[in-house]
């Protein structure tokens, strides 16, 4: 993975110094909260329900074992012993004190990490295909470009006060695993007919209040020009994006208002002045950065380990894990292992300090000391020898990281929800738990097969509910109680689509039954081996809607009392939100 040179280190160190002084000025009253707000946000610091929350950047989801140990250290020293991995491949700590944050950022800088631009109206942490560099279907390794774009966007002077936040995602495989059509800019690294590398550039996608699938602005931008092309997109957006209404300020609204053709015309007029200028990427630079992503010292190994097959026959648990959580690797004899953070009852994406230290050790011993955070809130060991899979599984099982549910209904993507977030209308984590408990039976889970379920506590869609096959959203109602909208038909990837709401909203306790009814219709309607999303696309919403609303829901006896039993006890979180 990429390692800082003295320039990177200096820039991050100077950022810590700048931030430390900003905190000092805030605490002394020299800076008003209003003035401090964008400064702390651009270092990842939010004010949430329980105090300050720090979002730390994991650039494009790649992390070393040493960096993971630093997260464990921060969790222990400054927080309550755990952290939350997010859908943007970052990590959040929820219980921090403002006075501690400069020290936390200094600790992070010592392992080449930071919270730069993880929030605020600027270019955010760039996200990437979690299997980049190791996927069998890879066309172009997008990691060097992700790093180059990280550097380009870090403290870009012109684009630090955009109309709204700006998210870029990059994919490099035949299959899009980075949800590039749901981002402000999505880049698909591709090769043209001549075998030259470039990018299909997608613009104006996004979720939130107005979910939109992005439009292709250019089918092929040669790699040399990607920085200047992105710069021109940002410049047009910075000048013309709406600033009068926060909910209409994302680039998707501008692209929609102008139309993609007019937007393209403006971008290309701007780009004409930059093209072939000094911002053009050089092959020296791409080669230099690519050298950090060169193959590790892979061994020459047979592609099938006979011991695996024997063990598989003996252990159903292992065999389940192998088929669900282990993915094919482009190098013979190696495998990609997804460590599930979705054990039933666990808050999706949460990991304890002990688990962080543990996975760091696993990475050192089994995967060249590196890990990845996925946008589905799991962890990945990308380079595991197949012959190590048995011992790795045994060890990881002891730390409850081998729930064999990757890509299944209980691999739920969820935002932190109303227990943590000031924006949320409803709880997400306890709902994820309730649903996971309902579908815990593995035979049933596997019969349902590949499906995505996303939960967001509000329309801002941090749980990316619009692109879940089933999406659940906390909605605001006059009675200030919790209500959830359920939608179906969303998908990410090459065949992205936005889900549609099935009808009137439900209470907290009705949602698992709603999911059960949706699954019932799917199992009734599906053709052999047809996935949930394909069935929805074929038969439409009507049969699902009809069945879900056909019969009343059993009355929940103690709906109110349950609100107080919401998170695993070790978190010690009182149920509290100013909205209720």
């Amino acid at each position: 993975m990429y390692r800082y040179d003295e320039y990177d280190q200096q820039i991050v160190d100077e950022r810590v110094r700048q931030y430390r002084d900003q905190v000092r000025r805030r605490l002394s009253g020299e800076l008003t909260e209003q003035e401090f707000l964008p400064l702390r946000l651009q270092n990842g610091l939010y004010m949430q329900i329980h105090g300050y929350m720090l979002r730390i950047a994991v650039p494009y989801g790649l992390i070393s074992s040493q960096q993971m140990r630093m997260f464990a250290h921060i969790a222990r020293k400054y927080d309550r012993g755990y952290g939350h991995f997010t859908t943007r491949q970052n990590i959040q700590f929820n219980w921090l004190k403002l006075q501690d944050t400069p020290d936390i950022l200094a600790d992070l800088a010592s392992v080449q990490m930071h919270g730069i631009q993880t929030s605020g109206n600027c270019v955010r942490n760039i996200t990437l295909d979690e299997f980049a560099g190791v996927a069998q279907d890879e066309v172009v390794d997008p990691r060097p470009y992700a790093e180059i774009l990280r550097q380009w966007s870090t403290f870009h002077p012109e684009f630090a006060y955009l109309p709204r936040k700006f998210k870029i995602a990059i994919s490099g495989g035949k299959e899009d695993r980075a949800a590039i059509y749901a981002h402000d800019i999505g880049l698909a690294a591709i090769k043209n007919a001549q075998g030259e590398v470039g990018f299909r550039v997608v613009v104006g996608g996004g979720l939130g209040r107005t979910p939109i699938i992005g439009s292709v602005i250019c089918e092929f931008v040669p790699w040399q020009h990607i920085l200047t092309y992105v710069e021109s997109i940002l410049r047009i957006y910075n000048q013309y994006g709406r600033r009068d209404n926060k909910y209409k300020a994302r680039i998707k609204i501008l692209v929609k208002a102008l139309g993609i053709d007019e937007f393209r015309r403006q971008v290309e007029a701007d780009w004409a002045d930059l093209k072939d200028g000094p911002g053009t990427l050089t092959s020296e630079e791409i080669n230099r950065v690519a050298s950090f992503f060169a193959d590790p010292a892979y061994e020459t190994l047979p592609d099938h380990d006979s011991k695996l097959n024997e063990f598989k026959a003996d252990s159903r648990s292992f065999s389940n894990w192998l088929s669900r959580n282990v993915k094919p690797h482009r190098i013979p004899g190696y495998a990609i292992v997804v460590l599930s953070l979705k054990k039933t009852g666990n808050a999706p994406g949460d990991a304890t300090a002990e688990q962080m230290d543990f996975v760091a050790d696993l990475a050192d011993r089994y995967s060249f000391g590196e890990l990845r955070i996925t946008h589905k809130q799991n962890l990945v060991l990308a380079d595991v020898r197949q012959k190590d899979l048995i011992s790795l599984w045994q060890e990881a099982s002891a730390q409850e990281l081998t729930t064999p549910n990757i890509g299944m209904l209980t691999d739920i993507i969820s935002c932190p929800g109303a227990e943590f977030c000031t924006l949320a209308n409803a709880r997400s984590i306890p709902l994820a738990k309730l649903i996971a408990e309902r579908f815990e039976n593995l035979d049933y889970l596997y019969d349902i097969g590949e499906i995505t379920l996303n939960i967001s506590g509000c329309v801002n869609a941090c749980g990316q509910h619009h692109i879940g096959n089933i999406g659940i959203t906390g909605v605001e109602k006059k009675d200030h109680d919790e209500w959830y909208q359920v939608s179906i038909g969303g998908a990410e990837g090459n065949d992205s689509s936005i889900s549609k709401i099935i009808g009137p909203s439900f209470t907290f306790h009705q949602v698992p039954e709603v999911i059960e009814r949706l699954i019932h219709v799917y199992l009734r309607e599906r053709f052999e081996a047809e996935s949930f999303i394909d069935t929805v696309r074929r038969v439409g919403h009507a049969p699902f809607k009809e069945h879900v609303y056909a019969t009343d829901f059993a009355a929940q006896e103690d709906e109110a009392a349950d609100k107080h039993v919401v998170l695993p006890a070790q978190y010690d979180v009182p149920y509290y939100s100013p909205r209720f």
Partner: protein
Amino acid sequence: MNMIIKNKAIVADDWTVLRLQEQETPESVIVAAGKVIVPLKVWQAQRAALQDRKEIGVWLASDERPEELKGDIEKFSVIAVDFPKFSDGRGYSIAFNLRARLGYSGELRAIGDVLRDQLFYLQRVGFDAFAPRPDRKIEDVIKGLSDFSEVYQTSFDQKLPLFRRVQRKANEAASS
């Protein structure tokens, strides 16, 4: 006399910024004698009278286009860009376009809600003069110019990206 930051130093300044009051119109407002920075609309309305002045400045609001000054920029001793709120980032692109596209080389001044923590970015896109918000100590504000000593990307101040300026290290393990 007002103090401003110009070319990285605190200096006295004798320009006045004309802002239209509610009942005033660009056509009828009287532009005082001396060194005045007038709103773009006043310049456009009173061009005939103003263009013969020895020294005249103009300022752009954040929703105005620098291209409106095309062909005129030689006439100004100073062009200012107004920041109605420090978080309104349009002024950064206005400055970049004035410098890089329109080739303006005279004084480019940030006015309005100009604060210490934006100064580093402001100087990068081409501002060389800053009139900080009057309630701030200018001695503190000027410190913002030196928050960072290195940058990655091109802008107006730095024509070459870091990767074209210096020899950066490749991964030694990979090159062996």
